[in-house]
């Protein structure tokens, strides 16, 4: 029997799974408030904290860029990683799993469908806060920074897939863990200050989160005078390494955990 190729199914699945996310945000627009106004308020509050502390002006730039990447981080953790948990509750997971597609494609599609929400949020924070508070960027660094940004987002989505497979199996425990780790992760990845301030060891641990080094690299590129954590080119190499690492790990773990889930009846909803 001949089937559509695996690559074709993979790509079609991404588009099809992105679709409801995309349409949903179009048909229900409350997100315009939750994804722009609220993060904006959070970022501005942080700026006033720094002002009150008489921090150097470039710290405002740190906060803005942190706010931009935070948008994507939250999409990955609260939408992508926990996705299968919700899908199982709906009975969708069994239909996704028994289709001849890959769960990775389902996750990527779902993340992509939500990415433009994150993008709207990121761009709003970037523009509004930069204009309001007069943050200046080095224009020559903008293009390379955009490149690093894209790499960072790729690494982040690969990590999201890894987390989703872990959630599928250890959902309750994983849930508590994600919740408990939220604040430490904001701290470790240096959303609001340069990672250098954390010192080599803590910064090194924080670097396992793909955002940490990517964010630091972007800051070095467009906010001259950012204290250097490790040299820029090594940061970029490390982010690319993370893409590979998390992509491979997530594939291995999706396959392994799918099998485990078939064994322990975790794909299906208990009916009786």
């Amino acid at each position: 029997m001949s089937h559509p190729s695996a690559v074709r199914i993979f790509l079609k699945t991404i588009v099809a799974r992105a679709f409801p996310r995309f349409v949903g945000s179009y048909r229900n627009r409350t997100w315009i408030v939750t994804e722009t106004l609220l993060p904006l308020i959070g970022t501005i509050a942080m700026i006033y904290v720094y002002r009150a502390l008489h921090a150097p002006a470039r710290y405002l730039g740190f906060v803005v860029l942190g706010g931009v990447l935070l948008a994507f981080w939250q999409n990955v953790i609260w939408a992508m990683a926990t996705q299968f948990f919700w899908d199982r509750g709906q009975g969708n997971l069994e239909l996704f799993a028994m289709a001849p597609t890959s769960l990775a494609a389902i996750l990527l599609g779902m993340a992509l469908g939500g990415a433009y929400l994150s993008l709207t949020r990121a761009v709003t924070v970037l523009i509004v806060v930069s204009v309001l508070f007069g943050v200046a960027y080095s224009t020559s660094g903008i293009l390379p920074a955009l490149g690093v940004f894209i790499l960072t987002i790729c690494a982040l989505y690969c990590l999201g897939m890894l987390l989703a497979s872990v959630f599928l199996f250890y959902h309750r425990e994983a849930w508590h863990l994600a919740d408990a780790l939220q604040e430490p992760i904001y701290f470790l990845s240096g959303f609001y200050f340069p990672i250098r301030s954390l010192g080599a060891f803590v910064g090194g641990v924080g670097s396992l989160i793909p955002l940490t080094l990517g964010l630091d690299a972007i800051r070095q590129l467009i906010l001259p005078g950012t204290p250097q954590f490790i040299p820029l080119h090594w940061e970029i190499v490390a982010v690319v390494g993370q893409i590979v690492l998390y992509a491979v790990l997530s594939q291995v773990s999706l396959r392994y955990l799918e099998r485990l889930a078939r064994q322990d009846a975790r794909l299906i909803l208990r009916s009786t």
Partner: protein
Amino acid sequence: MDIAVETRALRRVYKTRSQEVVALDGVDLRIGRGERFGVLGPNGAGKTTLIKILVTLLLPSSGAAFVDGLDVVTQFRELRHRIAMVSGGENVGFGMLKVKEQLWMFSQFYGMPSNPAKRRIAELLERLGLSDAADRRVSGLSSGMRQKMNLIRGLITNPRILFLDEPTVALDVGAARDVRDEVRRWMAEDPTRTVILTTHYMMEADELCDRVAIVNRGRIVAQGTPSELKQQVQQNAIVDIQLSPGRRLLDALREVDGVAGASVAEQDGIDRFTLLLSSDAALGGVMRIVEGSGREIRGLQKREPTLEDAFVKLVGRGMAEEEQG
């Protein structure tokens, strides 16, 4: 016979923290290509477990299962191209999508080219009388429409073998008939297609299935065509007795000499007992018990056996819940 589904000593145990549940306990089945095969059984018999194993969502604890010649444990990736499953009462998908959008989405997970998929969806919507609902949101559908949409989801990708887990549960008479009609029509289009369905409704199995397996406590207690199964009770007299409410009688009736099986269903405040008697003489013993109970006889009929009666004889009780009291 060209085999569509085969299981050998299939067993599935669920382990929870407090206990182990044996859901399937040595199931041997052979279902031919082109068959409409029914799996009948009371609650908890293991029907859904069997289906979930055959559609690769659950691993057997031991034994083997083959669908379309493929091992469900090791060759599941290939198998997933060839099968579909629709369960009754499912609430899948995304409520804010339109019906046609949701169906398109699922077709894409099978890699179907987009335009042929849309044409096929329009055609199936038409066939099930849902064309007008194509642009309605999934969240606004009645349960009958929703279940027809789910059935369409199972048909778009042209599966070799279609699995239906209680496809008409909780539907009104008209919607249930539409679903059954579509299953029949779909099967008639191509004699190599196979349907395996589980059901609580005897009438559905009798009317829709070429062959039926009766499952109880994880085991197959009988299989055959509906008329073969009915023949098992041909030598029995079937008596329906309607009684006013009162104290529990079922166990006492089963004890009577010559009573081969008994079941009861409550309806409109009346207990409707069905008794299988191996000889008419047993009726005397039954009447003594009934009179002794002080319950009032509201009606009594003797009639031809149905599949339900065969079920009562094989399983020892009816499909409906047990007598209260």
